[in-house]
C-alpha cells in the first residue's frame, strides 16, 4: 500500500529530517511511527500526502508514485488519503456538518451524496447530535472527532494521523484511539505518528521508531520503547 525507497529529506536550511528511509506498509495495517520531537515523524507523513517532496528516493502510495506526480494530479492523490492533525484544522466559521461536508464538496460530489456520507461519517465518530454546532463550542476531543470525520468522509484507503492525541487528556486519548482502531478495522490503512508512550504500549501494533531521521526499529506488536 505504502512504500518508501531510500527516502531522504534535507531541508534548504540543512536540517536532515529523514535519511535513507525504507519502509513498506501493507494494506489495512495499523502502524505507529514513534520517536522524539524532531525525529522526522511529521516529515514522513507530509511526504505521503505530498505536502513535501523528498530530496532523494521514491514514495509510493496505493500504486501511485507520489514523487513523480504532476502537481495538477496532487488533488486526486489527496482524495485517497485522509489526514488528522494535532491542532484539528477545522474551519471556525463553519458548522460541524459544513466542516465535514467540505471535504466532499471539493470533489464535486452531488448534494444528496454529500449529505448521506457526511451523516454517516458523523455517526461513525458519534457526533451526529453536534452537527449544527461551531468548532469553538466543542471540546478538544470533540474537535478531533470532527477532524477524523472529515478525513474519512470520502472513504480513503489510507488515513494518516499526526499526533492525533497531542492536545487531549488520557481519557479522551483512549476514546480517540478506539475510534481510530474502529476505522482501521473498516479496511483503512492507518499510520499514526505519536510520542505518547501509553497508547502505543496499550494498542500493541506495529511500531516504527525514528531517531534523527533514521529508522532504528521496526517491530510487529511492539511497544513504545525497545524492551
Amino acid at each position, binding site marked *: 500500500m505504502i512504500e518508501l525507497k531510500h527516502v531522504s529529506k534535507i531541508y534548504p536550511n540543512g536540517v536532515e529530517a529523514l535519511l535513507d528511509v525504507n519502509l513498506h506498509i501493507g494494506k489495512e495495517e495499523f502502524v505507529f511511527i514513534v520517536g522524539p520531537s524532531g525525529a522526522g515523524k511529521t516529515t514522513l507523513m507530509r511526504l505521503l*500526502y505530498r*505536502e513535501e517532496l523528498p530530496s532523494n528516493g521514491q514514495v509510493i502510495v496505493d500504486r501511485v508514485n507520489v514523487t513523480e506526480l504532476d*502537481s*495538477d494530479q496532487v*488533488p*486526486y*492523490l*489527496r*482524495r485517497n488519503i485522509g*489526514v488528522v492533525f494535532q491542532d484539528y*484544522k477545522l*474551519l471556525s*466559521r463553519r458548522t460541524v456538518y459544513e466542516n465535514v461536508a*467540505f*471535504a466532499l*464538496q*471539493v*470533489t*464535486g460530489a*452531488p*448534494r444528496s451524496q454529500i449529505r448521506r456520507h457526511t451523516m454517516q461519517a458523523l455517526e461513525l465518530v458519534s457526533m451526529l447530535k453536534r452537527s449544527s454546532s461551531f468548532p469553538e463550542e466543542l471540546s478538544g476531543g470533540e474537535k478531533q472527532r470532527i477532524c477524523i470525520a*472529515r478525513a474519512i468522509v*470520502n472513504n480513503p484507503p489510507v488515513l494518516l494521523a499526526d499526533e492525533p492525541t497531542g492536545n487531549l487528556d488520557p481519557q479522551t486519548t483512549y476514546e480517540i484511539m478506539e475510534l481510530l482502531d474502529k476505522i482501521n478495522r473498516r479496511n483503512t490503512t492507518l499510520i499514526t505518528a505519536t510520542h505518547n508512550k501509553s497508547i502505543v504500549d496499550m494498542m500493541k501494533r506495529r511500531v516504527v521508531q525514528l531517531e534523527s531521521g533514521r529508522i532504528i526499529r521496526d517491530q510487529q506488536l511492539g511497544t513504545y520503547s525497545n524492551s
Partner: protein
Amino acid sequence: MSLLSNLEFFVVEALRGIRRSGLMSFVAIGIVIISLTVFGMFLIFMANLGNIVSYMGSRLDIVAYVEKDLNADSAQVLEVAISQIPGVEKVAYVPKDEAWKSFREEFGAKLDLKDVIAENPLPNAFSIKVRTPELLPQVAESVAKFSDVSEVRYSGKLMKQIQTLVDAVRIGGAILSLLLFFATLLIVVNTIRLTVLARETDIYIMQLVGATNSFVRWPFVIEGVIMGVLGGFFGILILKFSYEAVIIRIKSALPFLPIVMDSNILTFIYLSVGISGMLLGMLGGYISVSRILKEKE
C-alpha cells in the same frame, strides 16, 4: 464534477467572502463605480466629439461664388469645367434664391431677417465637394482661376486643426482609460486579496482534502465578478441619469450642436461599461487568488 453542480457552492462561498470583508468590499465596489463612470463619460465624450467632427466633415465643401451677371448657359459650362478638376467629387449649382431660403431656414427662427435685409444679398454659387479634406486647398486654387468665379471659400484649415485636436484627445483618452483600468484592477486585486488572506486556512484545508486549484479559484473569481457587475450597474445608472440631465441643458443652450442621442450608441457605451466592470472583477479575483496558490507550490 461539472461547473454547474458546483455553482451554488461557489456563489455561496463568494457571497460569504464579500460579507466577511464588509467595508473593504464596499470600498472596492465604490472605486469600481467611480472608475467606470469616468470611463463611461470618456466614451460618451468621444462619441460626441466624433459626431461633431463627422457632422462638420459632411458640410465640408468649397463654395465658389460666381459673378452676378453670369447667365445660365455659361454657368452650365463652368459647372462641367469644375467637375473635371481632379479631386472633385460633386458639383452642385446653388441659385441665389435657394441659398437665401436655406439660410433663412437655418437661422430665421431666431430673427426675422426680412426686417434687417430686404433684398437677397447672396450671389449664385457652386457647392463643390472634394474626396478628402486634404484636397481642399488645391481644388480651391484651381476653381479660383476661372474668370467667372468671383470668390472661393472653404473651411479646410479649421477642419485640419479640429482633426488634430480630436486625434490628440482620442489618444490621451485611451491612455487615461488604460491607466484607470489598471488602477481599478490593482484596487480590486488587493481588496480580494485581503479576503483571500483571511481565508488562507480555508484554502489550505481545501487543498489538503483534494480540491483542485481551479476549484479553489472559482469562488474568488465569482466574488470579483459580483463586485464588478455591481460597480458597473451603478456606474451605468449614474451615467444614464447625469447624461440625460446634461443633454436637456445643452439642447436648449446650444441647439445646433449635434449631441449623441442615438440609443444604439448609448446602449453600446453602457454595455461596454458593464462588461468592463465584469472583466475587471473577474481578472481581479483571478489574479489575487492565483498569487496565493503560487506561493503554496
